[in-house]
C-alpha cells in the first residue's frame, strides 16, 4: 500500500500545468501507479469545472433597488443642502486634513516639479471635490443620527465605533492625498469612492445597531 500520497496543493499545481521537471515526472509516475491520487486529481478537476460552471447570475433581494434609489435621491439632493457638512466639526476636521495633505503634495518640492505648475496654488482635483460632495450630506446625516443615539450605546461600543471610523477616515485621507498627487487616476478615484461607500455602509450599520437597542 502506498502511503506517500501527493498533497492536493501539488495536484492542483499539476492540474494547472505549473509543475516543471523533475517534480512533474515524479507526480506523473506516482499518478500512474496510485489510484487514490489519480481519483483525487479527478475529483479536483471535477470540482474546479463545477465552480467554473456555476450560474453567473443570482437575483439580489428585491429591497436592494429601493435602497439604491433612496441613496441616489440623497446624492441628487446634495447640491440643495450646501454647506451643511461644514457645520459639522468632525467632518470639517477631516476635510481640513485632506486639504492640508493635498496642499502639501501640490506644493512643488524642486525645480523639475515646478515646471508648468502653478506655484503654491493648491487645487483640489475635480474628481475629489465631486466624490466628497456626493457623500458629505449622507455621511453628515448618518453621523448626526448616530451622535443622537450614542447615549444608548455602551462606552466600549462607542469607542469601537469611533476607532473604526478613524481607520476608514485615515484610508479616505490617504486615498485623497494620492488623488491630489495623481488626479487623472481612475483607480484612485474608484478607491476613494469605495472608502466613502464603506463609511456610509458602516455608519448605516452603526445607526441600525443603536436604533435596535
Amino acid at each position, binding site marked *: 500500500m502506498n502511503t506517500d500520497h501527493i498533497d492536493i496543493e501539488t495536484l492542483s499545481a499539476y*492540474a494547472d500545468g505549473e509543475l516543471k521537471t523533475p517534480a512533474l515526472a515524479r507526480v506523473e509516475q506516482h499518478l500512474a501507479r496510485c489510484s487514490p491520487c489519480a481519483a483525487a486529481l479527478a475529483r479536483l478537476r471535477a*470540482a474546479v469545472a463545477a*465552480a467554473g*460552471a456555476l450560474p453567473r447570475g443570482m437575483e439580489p433581494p428585491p429591497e436592494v433597488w429601493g435602497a439604491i434609489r433612496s441613496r441616489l435621491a440623497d446624492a441628487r439632493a446634495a447640491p440643495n443642502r450646501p454647506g451643511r457638512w461644514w457645520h459639522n466639526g468632525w467632518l470639517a476636521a477631516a476635510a481640513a486634513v485632506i486639504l492640508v495633505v493635498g496642499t502639501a503634495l501640490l506644493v512643488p518640492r524642486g525645480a523639475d516639479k515646478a515646471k508648468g505648475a502653478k506655484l503654491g496654488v493648491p487645487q483640489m482635483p475635480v474628481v475629489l471635490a465631486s466624490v466628497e460632495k456626493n457623500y458629505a450630506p449622507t455621511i453628515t446625516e448618518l453621523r448626526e443620527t448616530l451622535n443622537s443615539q450614542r447615549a444608548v450605546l455602551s462606552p466600549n461600543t462607542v469607542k469601537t465605533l469611533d476607532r473604526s471610523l478613524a481607520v476608514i477616515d485615515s484610508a479616505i485621507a490617504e486615498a485623497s492625498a494620492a488623488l491630489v498627487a495623481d488626479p487623472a487616476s481612475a483607480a484612485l478615484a474608484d478607491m476613494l469612492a469605495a472608502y466613502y*461607500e464603506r463609511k456610509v455602509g458602516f455608519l448605516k450599520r452603526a445607526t441600525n445597531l443603536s436604533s435596535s437597542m
Partner: protein
Amino acid sequence: MPGQLALVPDGPSDEPSDEPSDERSLARRAVAGDETAFEQLYHAHSSRVFALCLRMSGTRHQAAELTQDVFVHIWQRLGTWRGESALSSWIHRLTVNFVLSSVRSEQRRLKYETSEIGPQTPDADESTLILEASVKPKSVEDAIDIENAIAALPPGARTVFVLHDVEGYQHNEIATMTGTAEGTCRAQLHRARKLLMEALDR
C-alpha cells in the same frame, strides 16, 4: 500530460464592445440623470453583480450591501465609460475592484476591532445555503455544496478562487487587482482548492 483545467473566462477580459444600441442609449440617459434608464440598467446587470458580491463576500447580507454600494458607484462613474469595452465587462471590472477595495478597508477596520463587537466573520446561518432555490443549475445539490464550500473559505483564498476558478481571471490579472505577487496568488489558489476539497469530502 498535465492537462490544463479548461475554464472559459466569462467577463474578465475586455470584450470588444458590441453593446446593443438601446443599452448605450440607456447609459447616456442615466449619465444625464434619468433614473428610469438607470433602473433598467440595474435590472439588466444586478444579478451578475450580486452573484459576484455574494461569492466574494460569502454572505447574502454583505452581498446585498455591496450590491447597493456598487450600483451607487456605477451611477457616479457611468460617465467615464467610453464604450471601448462592453458595458457588462466595464461593470464587472468595476465590481471586482470595488469589492476588493471594500475588503481591504474591512481588513484594516478589523485590525482595530475590539472583542465587544468582534470580527465580522460570516454568520453561520448566512454562510451556509447561500444559493437560492430559484437558481437551477444542472445539479442543484452539487452547486449548493460548492457554493457553501466557497463561502466557508478564508477571505484571501476565497477571493483568488472566485476570481480564478469561477470568474476566469488569469493570475497576472488577479495579482494586479489584489496588489499581491503572482506566486502568492497561485499559492492562495492551491490552498483554496485544498480547503474546498476537504469541505466537499466531509
